[in-house]
């Protein structure tokens, strides 16, 4: 996927300017800064307070607190095993933390199940791609529209009328997402047959189909080469720009994190060791000692 050609089809000219063909993320930094400062970050939309999580004897998270502001891109970084995925799983209702609370737009919860969190406008992608292997790309993304589907069993069985109209309307929305992610050619392909990088796009598409206000991305760039990472960065920035979606992002690639995120939280062994802008975090002695340099 040529970044330049893709840049032409992108609807956001400012973003196209940040990713000219062949440049590395570092060189695009000044332009990216200009884009970021044009984004207004709003009030706190997600507030994590004193979360502690353990499995049996293993303490995965110890007293973690941080906040996420609306419209920002917040990165969570840390060495392997630091508890980043567990943190995301807590936010999204997959794990129930033993202590602490999470507030979403003012509503506080500690024990909420995944479906309730989904209804509150939080979507996520998975580190290990929890796609529905038996279905096509189109169907996978359509499942993301599930919360918007209203027809009952009888209407669906008859299909003619309300159910057909609803399917078509939702199809239209999903096709928009497919266009955005540039996977039109693959829409009927069974997901299991697609290359890894494209599967990650489908995972993102399914999350986007939920029209989330907060999007949790669990290592969206894992296993990708430089070009694929550029594409994915572009998609993430586009989502943030066009839809104003707040993004919480776990990522290992430091250049990506420093480039696209507004603020960063650093975890190590389940504890928070850094919280601030990328520059602040990069200069922090605790973070440096935990990491001993960057990773690519």
């Amino acid at each position, binding site marked *: 996927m040529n970044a330049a050609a893709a840049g032409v089809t992108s609807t956001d000219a400012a973003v196209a300017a940040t990713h000219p063909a062949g440049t590395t993320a570092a060189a695009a930094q000044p332009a990216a800064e200009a884009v970021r400062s044009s984004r207004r970050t709003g009030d706190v939309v997600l507030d994590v307070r004193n979360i502690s999580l353990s499995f049996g004897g293993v303490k995965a998270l110890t007293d973690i607190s941080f906040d996420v502001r609306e419209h920002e891109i917040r990165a969570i970084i840390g060495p392997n095993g630091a508890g980043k995925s567990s943190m995301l*799983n807590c936010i999204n209702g*997959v794990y129930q933390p033993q202590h602490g609370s999470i507030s979403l737009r003012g509503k506080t919860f500690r024990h909420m199940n995944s479906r309730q969190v989904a209804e509150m406008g939080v979507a996520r992608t*998975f580190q290990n791609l929890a796609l529905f292997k038996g279905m096509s790309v189109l169907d996978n993304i359509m499942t993301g529209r599930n919360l918007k589907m209203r027809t009952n069993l009888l209407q669906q069985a008859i299909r003619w009328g309300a159910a057909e109209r609803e399917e078509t309307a939702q199809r239209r929305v999903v096709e928009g997402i497919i266009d955005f992610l540039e996977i039109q050619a693959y829409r009927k392909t069974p997901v299991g047959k697609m290359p890894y990088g494209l599967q990650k796009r489908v995972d993102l598409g399914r999350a986007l189909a939920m029209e989330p206000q907060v999007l949790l991305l669990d290592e969206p760039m894992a296993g990708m080469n430089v070009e694929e990472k550029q594409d994915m960065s572009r998609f993430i920035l586009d989502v943030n720009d066009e839809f104003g979606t707040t993004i919480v992002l776990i990522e290992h690639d430091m250049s990506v994190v420093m480039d696209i995120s507004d603020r960063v939280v650093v975890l190590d062994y389940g504890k928070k060791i850094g919280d601030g802008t990328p520059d602040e975090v990069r200069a922090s002695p605790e973070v440096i000692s935990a990491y001993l340099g960057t990773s690519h």
Partner: protein
Amino acid sequence: MGPFLETLFGGLMVGMLYSLIALGFVLIYKASGVFNFAQGAMVLFAALAMARFAEWIPKYTGLNNKFIDNAIAFVLAALLMVVVAWLIQKLVLGRLVNQDGITLLMATLGITYFLEGSGQALFGNDIYKIDIGMPKDPVFILEKTFQGGLLINKEDLYAAVIAAALVALLALFFQKTATGRALRAVADDHQAAQSIGIPLDRIWVIVWSVAGVVALVAGVIWGSKLGVQFSLSLVALKALPVVILGGLTSIPGAIIGGLLIGVGEKLSEIYLGPHLGGGIEIWFAYVLALAFLLVRPQGLFGEKIIDRV
């Protein structure tokens, strides 16, 4: 009190037979994660083999010593079960290695039908007798305590002793021999076992063979008591609730589960049955298992199943 104890003993004896079959299940599940629906069919197949071999040997070799005939028949039947185990590993399990539980379960369902069909095609489908010299007469015990004593079937007693001996033998095998150690390693963690050089294929053939021999013993005992016939595999299906109760991964669980189900069935039939119209034995075990599944799916002694994302 007397009749109650008799029913209790009767239930314990039947339960022992269920336990023997359940033992085979647990062995295979522990070592390979496969739920062997075909265990009952293996019992039938093994019993048929034993019965017919014991018939054919004197006919074709003229050896008429019952003990030798039965011994040779047993060995031959055991060897046959090893061959079956090897075939199952080679043709079925080896090719379904990374499939999910449902697929493997359905594969063993297919094996069930194949074994039932081929067993009867090879060995015939009449009712056959297995006569290994078990005493058929009952004995009265505790005549001092209870009027007339309690009626116990000597055959059942012998069966219980044999079953206990088998369990002890298996326990020794698992704890003391190198192969037994390897089996326990595989049961714990396939990948770790593989990484230290344990050949999974061979282990699985061994496990299925052991399960096959256990099935043979169960088939012989049961066949000696009831005669070898097709319905044996259906009765053997009862072992499923046994492992649910006892826990799929626990050998003591299989024993205790079997005894509980055997006793429960007999007692419920006598005391609950008349109120419900009789014949509740066919579903009692399953409904009990269902109740357990809702309350404690891992059974009495099994490991808790955790679903991780």
